[in-house]
């Protein structure tokens, strides 16, 4: 039996953006309030542009894949763009409309809230 689509499992098994950043300009930690998962993210913002983002933490398949895909999507976009994306748009862009949304959007919400509050 398959619990998640093959594409999802492929990304989960071979993540590209896990790790730490040499000289980060931002560092965030957040908990998924529904389940207690923890994510930490860091990266480099230069001239209002998201140039590098990495992440780590205790994460399920969906929150891992959500982080991978959203980082891929947001790379080189501006903070201004990040703040104006809606949940629906992000889920659509990532192709994750059919999975647990609070997990799929954990990384996105972590980034969006951080930059909304500074």
């Amino acid at each position, binding site marked *: *039996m398959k619990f998640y689509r093959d594409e999802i499992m492929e990304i989960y098994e071979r993540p590209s953006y896990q790790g730490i950043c040499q000289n980060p300009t931002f560092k965030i930690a957040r908990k998924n309030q529904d389940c207690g998962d923890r994510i930490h993210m860091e990266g480099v913002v230069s001239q209002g542009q998201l140039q590098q983002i990495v992440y780590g933490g205790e994460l399920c398949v969906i929150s891992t894949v959500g982080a991978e895909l959203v980082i891929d999507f947001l790379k080189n976009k501006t903070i201004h763009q990040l703040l104006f994306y809606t949940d629906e748009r992000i889920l659509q862009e990532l192709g994750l409309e059919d999975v*647990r949304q609070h997990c799929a959007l954990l990384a996105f919400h972590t980034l969006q809230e951080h930059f909304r509050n500074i």
Partner: protein
Amino acid sequence: MDIKKDFPIFRNQPHDWSYLDSGATTQKPKAVIDAVRRFYEAGNANVHRSDYLLARKATEAYEGVRKKVASFINAYSEKEIIFTKNTNESVNIVAQSLRGWISKGDVIVLSRAEHNSNIVPWLRLANQVGAEIQWLELNEDLGGVVIRTQDIDFTRVAIVALTQVSNVTGTILPIKDLIKMFKTNIPKDRDVKFAVDGAQAVGHGQVDMRELDCDYYYFSGHKMYAPSGVGVLYAKGGNVLPLLVGSGMVDDIFIEKQDFVVKYYPDGMEAGTPNLEGVYGLGAAIDYIWQVGWEYITKHEMELIVYALDKFKDLHFQLIGPNFSVNRIGIFSFHYPTIHSHDVAQGLDVANVAVRAGHHCAIPLMKYLNLSGVTRASFGIYTTQKDIDHLVRGLKDVEKFYKV
């Protein structure tokens, strides 16, 4: 006995659906659903207010459930029973009632197995008055708590608030013995209050207030086949103060003195129109439990526990709780080091097995276990061996998918 046929939800779900999340909330028997409907269709009027026949009958029915609850938990009097919204509200009432009674430097004892609802109201009280919280740690097999004199300063203990059953490990704490132990070790001149969280215990076996000898006991209706939104607070001798004030609970108001007088207990504890249909449904749930009988309920659950522990031997998870069948209820939490609890639950959901994953509102316990979450299967009166087989089959598929 075919219990499942008493619960309409099973007719409205896929035929192979296994509900193993009764620790979160139980399903409701037709008798309870019918009672709620009957109340609205034939008995609805506000209680303790109007004096026409239907209103008198509604009040009688409401007060009748109070008597029934007293008998259900073997309280001394129905005057010791207060209807609340849920366990969590009950804990808040007790904690805030004791605010003027506890002093700075006093100790509140909690166990590591507590649900957040029996922690946070005490944390707030402790911070309000400058009291200290001391913790009873779990023993190694998670089958009970250890009492270490270095953890507990018996000369300062004022309140002991413990859960009767852990909602994560399923462990039944020996509350009666623990209360006795505290009473033996605490200096005789100290008046200590004992509060017991019965949320996970009430649907699983007879609880007895006279035997436990606690001051407060609280539970929710929805974990014992009653509707949600109705809970119970037992307070020995009526030793609590209202948390909410307003209508229904006030006896008189004095404009000149800018003051009011509260009604006699327990009416003075229930401000506003209560959850009438919920209380009525709670009465029907008690009748249902009595009709099935404690003997069947406890024997059936014990058989399931023994069966489950045997079947679990084929699986590769780490059981988070006692791996023996005594002093525990049918709650089994487990952990796979390489699979996240949500992914396990998702796999089981695909197989039509409903379980819960995450921290289970027991954050200090999760920190103690050094886990961010576990997957939990919890049993109810309607759970069968077939459900356990279904769970095991589902978990084998999960293990295969994640190559465990």
